[in-house]
């Protein structure tokens, strides 16, 4: 995934001298996903997939099927603004019944760059919970972050890990929640690194989009799509909260977790 993952454990049922092993197990889960999904690694499963002949179903496991099912849902819901096949996801054939994947033509390549961090973080969070972690913050490349429980000694009135969006953006309290922030380098000045897969042109709708929700994979995928989409779409999962810059220099917050979002000045020191 070409980025740094960091994890802080603040509370767990296990004795403290076991926490490093717990952290290691969680980060191992991230490494396993990196090894499978890294399209730049010739030995990865994704690299192997792109060499398969077209119309040849390949068995995939339940975890990868889950990831691709999510991708298909966001791809449809976003009208193709999220496309993990560089604009060719329509040529990807996913069969949940047989658990197979096939490409219609040659040259189709899966690129999970806009969702892999979130999916790996969900897996790592699952490992942490299973091992009895009650308080932790884990992020991938600072763009997707998950808070478990609350930090020790949290100020009164706060209910989770406080994470600020960008330099002067709002602060979000993450308690058993994930947040992803996608950012496009100033679209008014120069092309950003996010491309609208429908047109192949740099995305221009907005410079930043943040999404909060129970799982990191959907927030990761939707935050990328929202960079390109003009408004919060009706197809967005109901459990997701969007945080988008408005025309007046403020922020438009919509969704079930809106109350967890506050202006920086409202945050107790």
């Amino acid at each position, binding site marked *: 995934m070409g980025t740094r993952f960091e994890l802080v454990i603040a509370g767990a049922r*296990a004795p403290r001298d076991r926490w490093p*092993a717990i952290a*290691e*197990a969680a980060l191992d889960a991230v490494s396993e996903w990196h090894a499978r999904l890294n399209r730049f690694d010739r*030995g990865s499963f994704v690299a192997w997939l792109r060499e398969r002949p077209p119309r040849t179903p390949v*068995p995939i*496991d339940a*975890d990868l099927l889950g990831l691709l099912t999510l991708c298909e849902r966001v791809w449809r819901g976003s009208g193709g603004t999220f496309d993990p096949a560089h604009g060719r996801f329509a040529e990807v054939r996913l069969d949940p019944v047989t658990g197979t994947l096939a490409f219609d033509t040659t040259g189709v390549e899966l690129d999970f760059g806009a969702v892999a961090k979130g999916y790996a973080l969900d897996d790592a969070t699952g490992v942490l919970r299973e091992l009895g972690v009650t308080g932790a913050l884990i992020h991938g490349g600072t763009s997707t972050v998950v808070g478990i429980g609350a930090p020790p000694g949290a100020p009164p009135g706060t209910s989770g890990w406080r994470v600020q969006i960008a330099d002067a953006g709002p602060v979000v309290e993450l308690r058993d929640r994930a947040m992803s922030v996608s950012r496009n380098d100033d679209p008014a000045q120069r092309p950003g690194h996010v491309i609208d897969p429908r047109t192949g042109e740099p995305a221009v709708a907005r410079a930043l989009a943040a999404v909060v929700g129970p799982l990191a994979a959907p927030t990761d995928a939707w935050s990328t799509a929202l960079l390109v989409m003009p408004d919060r779409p009706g197809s967005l999962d109901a459990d997701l909260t969007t945080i988008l810059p408005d025309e007046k220099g403020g922020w438009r917050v919509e969704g079930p977790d809106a109350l967890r979002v506050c202006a920086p000045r409202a945050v107790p020191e």
Partner: protein
Amino acid sequence: MTDPHASPHAVDRREFIARAAGGLAAVSLLPDFSLARQPSPGGGVRVALVGAGRQGRDIIAEFAKIEGARLTALCDVDERRLASGLRRTPGAAGHATLDSLLGAADTFDAVIVATPTPTHRAVAERVLPSGKHVYLECPLAHTVEDCAAIVAAARGAKGTVAAGMHARANPVYQLARGFFRSDSVRDLVSMRAQHNHKETWRTPTNDPARDKALNWRLDPSVTTGLAGEWGTHQFDVFNWYTGKYPVAVRGSGHIALHDDGREVDDTIACSLEWAGGEVLQYAATLANSYEDTYEVLYGTNAAIKLAWTHGWLFKEADAPTQGWEVYANRQQFFNDEGITLIAGATQLADQGKLKEGVGLPHSSLWYALADWLAAIGDGNAPATSVSEAARATAVGIAAHKAITSGDRVEIDLSAVS
């Protein structure tokens, strides 16, 4: 009487050079004479995996990228690991016991044993007589007695039996061995290897009943420590290259970082002595990751450094230049320049893609599994025999004994020769 420290396939290096005099030019011009074997895509070997722990998960991941074989059965006595493994193996049947697996013997043609090292013998003695093809992960066992028992059981096996000493199937290591046994390195001066990887070696669990089974590597009564678990694989590189085994070892160890109540050293160093006076200096730690894992053979003409997916040849200034070197890919390491050892270099050079060949696309585990499956298909011997693995494992066990006792330990391979 045969020397148990000499490989049965050993050829004196000077004799090899003399015998290969006609072939030396070919070696010089074609530094890619050795390429990995792969199974036939149409082979359809049905494989059962015993053990769905850390190594088992890696095997499952590699199997997803190997054509011509599929995992049809998975066996693990740990319920959670079995469930987790089955999520990664579409279409495979789960078995909670070895009896259950062997009761469904018509569902698989071959078995991979990837259970904890101390349990290898018990599993191997059940699967080797079954007539199935068998791949045994290494180290082969945690005692020399168990190694000998596995070797004896393998002698009567009807299927293709391979041991997982990963270097021997690795194309870069095969290529480098060709250089070592030619005149490129010339006389061996010394050897060095390390395994540095910062990790706990502890598998966390909330269930005290699972803790002992999951953390067998930290159990002093059964573990062979870093020397056994990692060193065995690396020592085997030198055994294989020199065609001989060390005769004695001394070493020491301590806990440098993981002060969590464990009694097994997280940092070790040892010195293995060969009969000709050559010495291998080995160090391993779980407290630092610098430079990871590699082996170096120092010769009077050049040094070879091997790092699993990569290999380099560092030539002395007075070593003769060979024709192909002008086309070679090179990498700078501070004051030294290494010639990259590239498997399939001639074909890649012809296609103008030499740099794309730097570094293997797959892990050593992938090549070892592919080699075994190819051997099942073509009937040729796999890269590593059980006997070779037993001797390498016995070296690792001796090194662990030297480290934990502080004594100089003589390496007795007679029980596994």
